């Protein structure tokens, strides 16, 4: 390794790799360099890809099983190389890097296609025929969406949407393959797919959050899938068990949301809603937890999930009914919380517990 390279490595490690030991990183870096180098040589773009890979791996490191780190790095590197063909994804995340993303024609690229094909074979095998054909046509042969759309008599947008669904499925199958285990429940695969495709609506429909909470298998596999699009360092878990926890929780949430540049009013609104939810946990379930996520798309936002395994609410409708007086409904403050928030969802099962998810969106990002 040349001196300049090691200086760069140190830089990277100092930047975001505090949670990884230096030697692990060096080892990982070597692997990633090898994977990327085998595919694109050392064209200027190669270093970009190596850096991009490491950034993602480091971002995911705290939430990924250490044993998964190396395969994850390899997968990430391969995926990134593969995605050189599709500019959309990278351009969106990495506008400043603006790499040239034309279909490669060099022998290295051909070698990559071959290798990629074998590595992806099992995952591809699980896709349906149409998805497989589409992915091979676009990702491996490099045919652009417009050409495919013309051939099929549809629009590029429709092809892009199908591609993105197929990619999401491929990622799920790939991760499932790496884990070499079958999902324990029927819901696992749909939930993972919804996570992989970052489809929020579907995630809510499936109540993915609750599933992840209860299913260790998906909890583990979801991390690399989520690490793709969302930063993980914005997630905070706060246990709630007693009165003082309520005050602490709303302080933490306010602090975290403050980083997104929320207005004082929005911070107060959020802290108040959190206060109400925590009180319900302490009063009715004894204990539970708060999960706070910072969201980035389509706007900065904060999502708080309050869950407990308490007695649950028998009559949800009554609990949400707004009375004429302040203490309408069942006195859980839920109608008020719902009014304060941009999004509100509740699930409850008598005897099993209650999960309330609230979201508040900020203004469009301002510089």
């Amino acid at each position, binding site marked *: 390794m040349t001196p300049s390279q090691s200086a760069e490595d140190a830089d990277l490690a100092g930047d975001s790799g505090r949670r990884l030991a230096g030697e692990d990183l060096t080892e990982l870096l070597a692997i990633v360099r090898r994977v990327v180098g085998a595919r694109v*040589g*050392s*064209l*200027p*773009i190669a270093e970009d890809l190596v850096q991009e890979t490491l950034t993602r791996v480091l971002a995911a490191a705290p939430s990924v099983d250490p044993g998964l780190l190396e395969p994850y790095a390899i997968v990430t590197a391969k995926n990134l190389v593969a995605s050189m063909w599709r500019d959309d994804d990278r*351009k969106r995340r990495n*506008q*400043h*890097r*603006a*790499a*040239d993303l*034309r279909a490669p024609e*060099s022998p290295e690229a051909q070698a990559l296609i071959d290798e990629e094909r074998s590595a992806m074979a099992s995952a591809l095998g699980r896709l349906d025929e149409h998805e497989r054909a589409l992915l091979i046509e676009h990702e491996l042969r490099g045919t652009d969406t417009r050409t495919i759309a013309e051939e099929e008599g549809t629009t590029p947008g429709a092809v892009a949407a199908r591609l993105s669904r197929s990619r999401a499925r491929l990622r799920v199958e790939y991760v499932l393959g790496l884990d070499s285990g079958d999902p324990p429940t029927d819901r696992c695969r749909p939930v993972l797919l919804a996570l992989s495709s970052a489809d929020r609506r579907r995630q809510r429909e499936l109540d993915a959050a609750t599933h992840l909470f209860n299913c260790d298998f998906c909890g583990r596999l979801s991390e690399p899938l989520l690490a793709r699009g969302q930063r993980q360092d914005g997630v905070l878990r706060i246990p709630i068990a007693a009165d003082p926890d309520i005050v602490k929780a709303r302080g933490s949430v306010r602090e975290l949301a403050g980083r997104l540049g929320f*207005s004082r*009013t929005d911070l107060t609104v959020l802290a108040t809603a959190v206060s109400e939810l925590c009180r319900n946990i302490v009063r009715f379930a004894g204990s539970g937890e708060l999960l706070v996520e910072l969201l980035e798309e389509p706007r900065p936002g904060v999502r708080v999930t309050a869950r407990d395994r308490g007695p649950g609410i028998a009559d949800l409708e009554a609990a949400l009914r707004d009375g004429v007086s302040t203490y309408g409904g069942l006195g859980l403050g839920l109608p008020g919380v719902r009014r304060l928030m941009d999004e509100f969802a509740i699930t409850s099962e008598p005897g099993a517990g209650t999960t309330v998810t609230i979201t508040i969106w900020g203004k*469009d990002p*301002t*510089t």
Partner: protein
Amino acid sequence: MTQTTSGQHLLSELVAHLREHRTKLREEWAERIQQAHLLTAMTPQEMAAETTSVYDNYVEVLETGSVEALQHYARDLSERIIPRGVETHEVVGIVLLLRDVLARSLFEKYQRDFGLLNQVLDAYEPAANRIANTVAVSFVDERERVIRQQQDAIRELSTPVLPVRERLLILPIIGVLDSDRAKQLTEQLLAGIRRHRARVVVIDITGAPDVDEAVANHLVQTVDASRLMGASVIITGLSPKIAQTLVTIGVDLSKMNTIGDLQGGLEEAERLLGYAVTKKEDATLS
């Protein structure tokens, strides 16, 4: 490995070529810009200065591979030219023209060796695309920032909180209220109450043609929130239609202090503040 070395070698050869012919190529580029009627808002002197800077930055990116300096320059340039009405297509246009001018010059230089030409272009193209993209994105970012700033300024102008006299604020609502604006208006009013230590607020909605249920609801919330801060609220200019809307959403109008017009509202405000001496004595007696 050998491929890269040669790639890097080609790139540095290319950079040397572009440096050597800097004056000629830059002039050719400026001429093309003129022919295409781009950047017409700029004087020839400015044009000469800016094209030279862009050219040098361009070559530097080719040489170092780092777009940071260019990005910085592009932002700065955008900031200067946006107020003069330069459009996105012009900025993208000039960068593409430069790409084109340089590519032509490379064609000329390497036309004898087709294989070499291909390699040179292979090395040149990605970097050139990257530059075009960087400049365009910087420009658009900057433009969006300027637009946002203007929008904020317009918003603030349209919801002024006016301190009329000690302890008295007037909030004239003019134009269409949507929920975003209504929320912002409330925030400004509440902050104004604290800043001016207001005891009475007159909200005049004569100038608000349309108040739907959501906004009416918001109006009621504004009144209640002002009260929580210790200020009394008088609403003036309430049209029968808006009054109807308020009743529809279940507002008890008898609990709102509503006065027909602004003049009457101000008189009532002064009475509440105790400026009318006789009224004050009345009040003390009651």
